């Protein structure tokens, strides 16, 4: 592979590029599911190709092909240079890149048991076992158990002198039971909604979830939701569970601090941000206990890697410290705009795409409020919600509304009756400013999200967020009823 990547770089530089990098990526996927007791599908795919990114005449160009051959290396590299030269003809501001050292390294993510080596029958049996347990609850109308696996092998080389090989495996699984009441579909999921739990790990992460052992509880909660009252509307104290808070961080801290959005590059599609470059060190993003980090070194997280797609080593960086905005998610190019080195957030979702600024593991750091039980006990009256059901947020990431699968009223420090379809709304800095308690590290978990869409052509990133349950005061809940 060294020879192939060198051919690409040589061809690009010979054609006039002042900078070039190449990524060769081999991706294998498998997905399977069981629905209402029957295998729903087993789908597998693999994709292999390379992409060359260059700067020529001060502008970017990128070309990619699934034909990984010497002839193609030269052709695609020259094509990338021609594209860059065309880019330079419209309003070019010569690209400047933050410095990065040259690395010759390999990196591998954690994986004890290769999930692709586990027989299909064993996987389907596990899903069937969980699905059967959910269907034992009579009032459940629809059940689904699913798992999926991704294996990625990526080689990166650049004209800076780097040659980096990385490999990792991702495993995901989850179950969901649906109850239907008065035409309303009420899902209850484990360990998370929208596909379950996602990990940078092997088959061991799936067996560790104990899907069959949680299936009955999940189904019984879905059944209980069908009998539960609607979440009452009003302004109250809100305690948010870890997985929902992870999505809250994703939408209202992760996206607004992506520097390409801040600088306007995503204006026409994903949107911009209410945050500006000048807000660093000044914007009160949250209460003093709110600390948010971007960390690409968290073991087992979908947001972890050795090096990003610009050859920048994985780092841990603060976005919000003691409630104040202190940083962004950046690239080598965008970092120049804030006068900092890149904190390594550039990733592409495959060989055919150019890297974009992406979240790594963007986490709300744990607080000191003990366990979830301690936090509930410390709350006189309010609402506890968990597991996302839907989300909506404007294109500046300021005004949001989330709905969860389930909620429980809090009365005198204890969980009370279950409520269905709880939702809440807020304005980003005001919401985070109302955070007055965050559970301790013992409650902190990393939640993987494998469906973050951004960019044109569309790219789907796999990212993650660490969070522990937290409490927010004076939040509007039960809206739109």
């Amino acid at each position, binding site marked *: 592979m060294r020879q192939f990547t060198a051919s690409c770089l040589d061809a690009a530089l010979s054609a006039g590029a002042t900078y070039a990098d190449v990524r060769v990526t081999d991706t294998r996927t498998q997905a399977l599911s069981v629905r209402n007791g029957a295998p729903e599908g087993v789908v597998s*795919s693999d994709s292999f190709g390379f992409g060359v990114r260059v700067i020529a005449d001060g502008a*970017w*160009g990128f070309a990619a092909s699934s034909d990984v051959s010497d002839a193609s290396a030269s052709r695609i590299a020259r094509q990338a240079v021609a594209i860059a030269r065309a880019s330079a003809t419209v309003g070019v501001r010569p690209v400047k890149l933050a410095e990065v050292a040259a690395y010759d390294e390999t990196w591998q993510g954690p994986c004890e048991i290769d999930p692709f080596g586990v027989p299909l029958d064993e996987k389907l049996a596990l899903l069937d076992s969980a699905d059967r347990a959910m269907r034992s609850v009579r009032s459940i109308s629809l059940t689904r158990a699913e798992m999926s696996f991704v294996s990625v092998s990526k080689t990166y080389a650049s004209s800076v002198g780097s040659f980096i090989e990385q490999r990792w495996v991702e495993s995901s699984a989850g179950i969901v039971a649906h109850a239907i009441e008065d035409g309303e579909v009420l899902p209850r999921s484990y360990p998370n909604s929208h596909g379950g739990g996602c990990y940078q790990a092997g088959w061991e992460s799936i067996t560790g979830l104990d899907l069959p052992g949680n299936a009955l509880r999940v189904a019984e909660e879905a059944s209980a939701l069908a009998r539960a009252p609607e979440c009452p509307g009003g302004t109250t104290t809100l305690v948010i569970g870890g997985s929902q808070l992870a999505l809250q961080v994703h939408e209202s801290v992760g996206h607004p601090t992506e520097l390409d959005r801040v600088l306007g590059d*995503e204006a026409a599609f994903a949107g911009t941000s209410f945050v500006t470059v000048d807000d660093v060190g000044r914007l009160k993003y949250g209460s003093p206990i709110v600390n948010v980090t971007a960390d690409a070194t968290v073991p087992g997280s979908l947001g972890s890697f050795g090096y990003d797609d610009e050859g920048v080593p994985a780092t841990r960086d603060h976005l919000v410290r003691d409630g104040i905005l202190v940083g962004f998610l950046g690239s080598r190019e965008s970092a120049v705009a804030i006068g900092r080195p890149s904190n390594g957030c550039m990733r592409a979702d495959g060989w055919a795409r150019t890297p974009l600024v992406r979240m790594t593991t963007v986490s709300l750091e744990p607080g000191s409020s003990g366990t979830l039980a301690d936090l509930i006990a410390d709350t006189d009256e309010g609402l506890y919600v968990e597991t996302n059901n839907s989300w909506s947020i404007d*294109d500046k990431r300021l005004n949001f509304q989330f709905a969860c699968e389930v909620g429980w009223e809090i009365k005198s420090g204890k969980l009370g009756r279950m409520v269905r379809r709880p939702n809440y709304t807020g304005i980003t800095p005001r919401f985070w400013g109302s955070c007055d308690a965050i559970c301790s590290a013992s409650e902190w978990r990393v939640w993987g*999200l494998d*469906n973050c869409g951004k960019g044109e052509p*569309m790219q789907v990133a796999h990212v993650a967020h660490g969070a522990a349950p937290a409490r927010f005061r004076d939040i509007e809940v039960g809206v739109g009823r």
Partner: protein
Amino acid sequence: MDPLRARKLALGTVETALACGAAEAEAIVLSTSSALTRFADNRIHQNVSGEDTVVSVRAVLGHRTGVASTNRADASSLRACCISAVDAARRAPEDPHFPGLPAPEAVVTPDRAAPATRSFGPEQRAEAVRAIVAQSSARGLSAAGQVSVSDDTTAVANSLGVEIAMPVTSFHATVLSTAPASGSGRARAAGGARAGAPPPPPATRDRSRPRPSATALPPSRRGRPGLPRSIRGSTRSFWLPKRSRTWSGCWPGTAARRRR
């Protein structure tokens, strides 16, 4: 990939699937060549192209089906892909409603490709961007959007004798023009023209002179006159107050799973 090669690849894959144990088989070859130029703040900030050929196999065992895909066209990779599809079919539940694979029918060989779109290279895309940006910058607005072209060939073959391929070219452009203080306008153009150049770039206007609706656009800006309605480019424009440009987070063109 030209249609003949795509058909041969699809047919060869069907034969491989049958040799791997499928009772019946279908192969779909999707060969794509696409390019997209993105701009923001009146400049091109991303400019990409890519080419790929994906072979998708459906293996049939009675009323059971299994699917696998690969973008490697060598014999061993195609064989591994076919084995995966057959393996998946063996574990799939019986689908009593599966009607079987379609039998061949007489069809007109379709061709939805425009040579002018095929040759719409990076310089032409940059020229289109320049034309779009000029309208915004002349009005003191900031333009962001994209101009993209694609040249795809889809071939389908099955063990009952279906064997057909269709080339398609398409063109898309979008622009969001934003005023410094407030207000924005959005326009979009799309076309899958059979012949001639891609549709003209979308029009943008200052919000201080808004139009009541897209239908107020002159015909020259609504589409490509002279082409059948079904294949001419279409444009639409609409205006939104800046503060109301909220969205649900559901991305256009995505299927079951929402993008965050």
